């Protein structure tokens, strides 16, 4: 079920709000779990059992690790818990990728399994794994209440597209959390902003990208419009979803971590990844990069560590070589920034270092959205006029004019300009206008939904 859908907004959400707030405190987690499973079942009936299996393995692994803490069995149960999660993820997400590569390398023809990717498997698997590792490390106690652990993993606000919430961040709230008008209203407004980012900005920009793909009159300018539109599309799509998840979390008394912090204003690739999909970056840092030694090792080993982490980051986004290349592309720039140009970037005027980052970032997302490795050359080449395409066509100018306001609004919205402007308005005024602004956005979003067609979130495939 999509957050940006009529069934979610006008059937599921009212129902869960009503039942949740009527239910006594001790049953609130059970209510959330029930509705979360229904939420998942609505989109993936057959894979609901798979998710419950993953939760059960983590639950058992956590208890057994604690039971055998200090013995070698704890390590065995750690590997069972982590390995089971990785095995499920590997099978459902990467089996066909591996088979296709084996077929290509060895000239064999193992039939592809063509398994549908369970929605959100990358997110809930990473949450389950982090829980098992945290219990093993002694960072948290094992959860004895199955409902509480299942609620943590399956919690519908962040179940299918993040942010990747650590168990340690919400363990206390799973046990006891407060529900205040302040938290609810901040969550409601945050949810509305996320909904508007998705429906009013990300979806139309996605349509522009589709128009570009279907166009027979591509031009250099159209390639650049597409590249910029896609960067903004994926940012508003994903950060909009994160806003909705964080907002819903607050409505139900949880405080989830932030996932984006205006990544497009970064002045280096290093900074970009501190601001983009922060929950994924910190997950790989804490559970892969640092356990491998991080940067406190020899230079060749450090380079190897970076190579592994960024290859995995790329693969996490999708089972295709262009995602691997996308990850390694960032690894390349992170390495040269650390070794050579990082200090130069800091000395440069901010505008120049931002242009540097934006150029690298735009190319990266063109690689990301290319149709496999074969599509990368055509898409990146098109930005520089490869293939003798014209600089501009009538069609390009039409779509530039048609989407100009939206593109400008999206560019401004991807920077802290609006936030800064709002912070300068006196609280008296913001207190008065916040509710009308929220209602206007909700009416507009509903109008776009009623008129529009099905438009799934990008990050559901990860």
């Amino acid at each position, binding site marked *: *079920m999509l957050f940006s*859908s*009529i*069934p979610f*907004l*006008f*059937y599921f*959400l*009212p*129902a869960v*709000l*009503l039942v949740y707030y009527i239910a006594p405190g001790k049953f609130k987690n059970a209510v959330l779990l029930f509705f979360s499973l229904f939420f998942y079942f*609505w*989109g993936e*009936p*057959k894979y609901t059992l798979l998710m419950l299996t993953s939760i059960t393995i983590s639950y058992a692994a956590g208890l057994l690790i604690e039971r055998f803490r200090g013995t070698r069995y704890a390590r065995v149960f750690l590997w069972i818990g982590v390995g089971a999660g990785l095995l499920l993820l590997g099978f459902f997400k990467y089996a066909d990728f591996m088979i296709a590569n084996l077929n290509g390398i060895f000239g064999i023809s193992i039939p592809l399994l063509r398994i549908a990717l369970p929605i959100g498997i990358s997110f809930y698997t990473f949450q389950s794994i982090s829980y098992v590792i945290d219990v093993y490390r002694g960072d948290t106690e094992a959860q004895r209440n199955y409902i509480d652990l299942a609620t943590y993993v399956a919690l519908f606000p962040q179940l299918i597209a993040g942010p990747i919430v650590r168990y340690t961040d919400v363990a206390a709230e799973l046990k006891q959390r407060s529900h*205040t*008008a*302040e938290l*609810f*209203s*901040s969550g*409601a*407004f945050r949810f*509305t902003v996320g909904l508007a980012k998705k429906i*009013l900005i990300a979806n*139309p920009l996605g349509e522009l990208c589709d128009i570009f793909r279907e*166009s*027979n*009159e591509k031009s250099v300018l159209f390639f650049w419009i597409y590249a910029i539109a896609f960067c903004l599309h994926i940012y508003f799509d994903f950060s909009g979803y994160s806003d909705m998840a964080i907002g819903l979390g607050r409505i139900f008394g949880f405080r989830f971590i932030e996932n984006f912090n205006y990544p497009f204003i970064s002045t280096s690739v290093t900074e970009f990844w501190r601001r983009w999909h922060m929950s994924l970056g910190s997950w790989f840092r804490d559970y892969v990069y640092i356990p491998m030694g991080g940067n406190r090792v020899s230079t060749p080993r450090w380079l190897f560590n970076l190579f592994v982490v960024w290859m995995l980051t790329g693969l996490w986004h999708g089972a295709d070589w262009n995602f691997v290349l996308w990850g390694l592309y960032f690894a390349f720039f992170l390495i040269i920034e650390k070794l050579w140009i990082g200090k130069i970037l800091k000395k440069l005027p901010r505008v120049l270092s931002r242009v540097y980052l934006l150029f690298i970032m735009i190319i990266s997302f063109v690689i990301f959205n290319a149709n496999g490795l074969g599509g990368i050359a055509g898409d990146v080449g098109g930005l520089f006029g490869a293939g003798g395409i014209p600089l501009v066509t*009538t*069609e390009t*100018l*039409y779509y530039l*004019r*048609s*989407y*100009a*306001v*939206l593109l400008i*609004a999206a560019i401004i919205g991807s920077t802290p300009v609006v936030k800064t402007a709002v912070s300068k308005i006196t*609280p008296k005024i913001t*207190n*008065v206008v*916040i*509710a009308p602004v*929220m*209602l206007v956005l*909700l*009416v*507009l979003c*509903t*109008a*776009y*939904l*009623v*008129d*529009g067609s*099905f438009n799934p979130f990008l990050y559901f495939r990860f």
Partner: protein
Amino acid sequence: MKIKNYVVTVCFLVFFLGGALLCLLHSPQEYSTSERRKLKQFPKITTETVLNTKFMSEFETYTLDQFPFRDAFRTVKAIAHYYVFGQKDNNDVYLAGDSVSKLEYPLRPELITSAGQKFETLYNTHFKDTGANVFAAVIPDKNYFLAAQNGYPSIDYDELLRLFRESTPDFKHIDLFDALTIDQYYRTDTHWKQECLSGVVDVLAGGMNIADRLTWDYVENKVEAPFYGVYYGQAALPMAPDTLTYLTNPILDGCTVYNYETGKTTGIYDMEQLTGDDPYEVFLSGAAALLTIENPACTDGRELVVFRDSFGSSIVPLLVPAYSKITLVDIRYVDSTYLPNLVDLSTADDVLFLYSAMVLNQSNMLK
């Protein structure tokens, strides 16, 4: 601060809980007049449709189709789309002056050629050896007059005509493009106005050598009820309606129209359609696969066969005085290979292929 929190919380809850209540209390509608389509009804729920998620996807369509105040929300969206976000079209529908049209872009050369080849096959099958005169005319759609002039992408109409003529070498082509202006089309609909077609009829009659058999002697009958064309509903914007006018004279009044699908015989104009969902269907009862118009006022036995789309419904009556019998075929609704089983085409003196540029560019709908 505290009041703000309560106000926001209450507004949020009222919006969604109130919206949910309205959704539950709203009586499902069968049909959308503005969009001219049936609306989705509550889907069938079985174990199978739940497990294969068919129920879920159909339920989503149901909730969209049956949303309370749906048309009002569509209007809000259209206004925001055009006037807040400055987008030039909304679901491909655009406004140019006081007229509304739908983008037809890009040119699909293979479909133009395919349409021509299909017509050429019909000619070779039915008319090549009969001695019938075969004519073809392309009707420019509204985009020809509005798109490029208002900065919208426009297909290359010269190329369209070239491709069509190249693929129909045995036809005599009649150029209608110079006989039309945008004022001859309804503002809110895709079609042309019957009362404005005297120039087009002159050009056609000249090309088909029937000018001496036609006169422009008609009574204009204005329909009192406002005419909201097909683009009105799609645009979802407030705009003034058109006025629908149909032409009559004693010759047309004496004609009978036989519909092969329904088996019914009616007149040229089906007055019941004026109160229906699409008043343009007053002309020859609207979409029909196969019709025959019998004109008792013409006794020389001349016959015309017209392969046509919906534009033909309003102009063919104006060719009636020149013929004893006119057969209208719409191969969007009948497989052209079945025609010999349904009607005898071998007695035609003249054959006219009359299609709008829009249909030629989407000719995969031709059977």
